[in-house]
């Protein structure tokens, strides 16, 4: 199987890697770069636990090949905090009690950040629609949504 040399940016750091054709972005993040915040829930684009930003837009990293990321800019949950400070939506979701087991949380945070970037004042319906692809089996979503609403307010 062919290998490909790729250069890309992860959370502001330039990286180079030799990746096999069939390696997913998810696998590269978790196993090569030890960025294990991004989770593998279903590996088929249903659960959203693997959501990361690719060139500013959220994608299911289980359905993106690592080789397709040549030249791309990737942001994972590890890249949301800056200067030891959590991103606003990280803090508000914690404060709202929107985290239980935490497995869905990294994906939720990325989807929520992307929503707030493209629509700083989302309605509750906008938030629900933006999070359709992020399944949570613990919280029942209400507190997650409250957390995102709070982040939009501040």
């Amino acid at each position: 199987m062919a290998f490909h040399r790729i250069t890309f940016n992860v959370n502001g750091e330039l990286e180079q890697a030799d990746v096999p054709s069939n390696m997913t972005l998810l696998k590269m993040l978790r196993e090569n770069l030890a960025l294990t915040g991004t989770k593998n829930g279903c590996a088929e684009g249903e659960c959203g636990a693997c959501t990361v930003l690719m060139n500013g837009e959220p994608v299911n990293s289980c359905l993106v090949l690592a080789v397709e990321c040549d030249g791309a800019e990737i942001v994972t949950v590890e890249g949301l905090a800056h200067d030891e400070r959590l991103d606003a939506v990280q803090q508000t979701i914690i404060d709202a009690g929107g985290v239980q087991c935490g497995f869905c949380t990294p994906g939720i945070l990325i989807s929520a950040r992307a929503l707030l970037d493209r629509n700083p004042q989302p309605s509750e319906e906008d938030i629900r629609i933006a999070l359709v692809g992020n399944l949570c089996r613990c919280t029942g979503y209400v507190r997650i949504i409250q957390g995102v609403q709070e982040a939009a307010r501040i």
Partner: protein
Amino acid sequence: MSIDAHPGLPEFDYIKPTTLKEASDFLIAHAGEARPLMGGTDIFVRMRSGGWNDKYLVDVKCLEGMNDISYDPHKGLSIGAAVNMNRVIASREVQDNYALLLQAASSVASYQLRTRATIVGNICNASPAGDTIGACILLGGVLHVHGNGGIRQEPIKTFFKGPGETLLRTGDIVTSIHFPVPEEGARGVYIKLGRNKASDLSIVGVTVFGYPDVNVPSGYRIRLALASVAPLPLVVDQVEAILTETSIDEDRLMLAAEAAMHACTPIDDVRASARYRKVMTRNLSFNALKVVWKDLKKL
């Protein structure tokens, strides 16, 4: 050792040609073991579950013209094959002139999946459940296909041959999809029934598109397409006939909805039983027809 709880992707070689010709030539030279790769939302799922085992994936997303979207008030809308659904949904021109397409695209899966999913990919997979296919047919969509003999055009209405089967031949690459300017006063709606409110594949999908037409007795031309209730995306011609013959009222709409129910041939599967699908085809067809008819009457 991998600690994946899920099977990884089988081995394949990723190929990234720089021209359409190179891509088509490669696909022809490796017939039966190479497949064009767009957003990968379907391919990787099928490769993991063992259904597809291609030796080569040929990434055609970055080839010329594939990422363009343009609108001309006389010629209509042209969407490059690699333009993702979120871009289609965010396009001003689509919002203003092709609301039906926008609505259908918005019903596909989730925001992050639509960052990768494409209208053309949805069509090329020829899944009978494709959410955007009904809109593409009723809006008169035509595919531009690059193949061995150069570029040719394929109307979507006649593009499907079976589940997953289309008129595409080895070496063919769809480069874009084109829509004419919709008829004056056109209205449409897509109603999707899934197991949950959003993100699921459809159990039944009903697309209705209509416009005023002074040349027919009813004064309106209204067409209906169904998803997930036949081996192919299905346009029910009887609906159009019933709704042009004579003036439209609710009984007439119910007659058309019943024609849709009789025309479909659903199966039992994990999402729903055939019987349920049939009944829901009638009910949702009636609802969709009523929405469009009421909208048209307001004109």
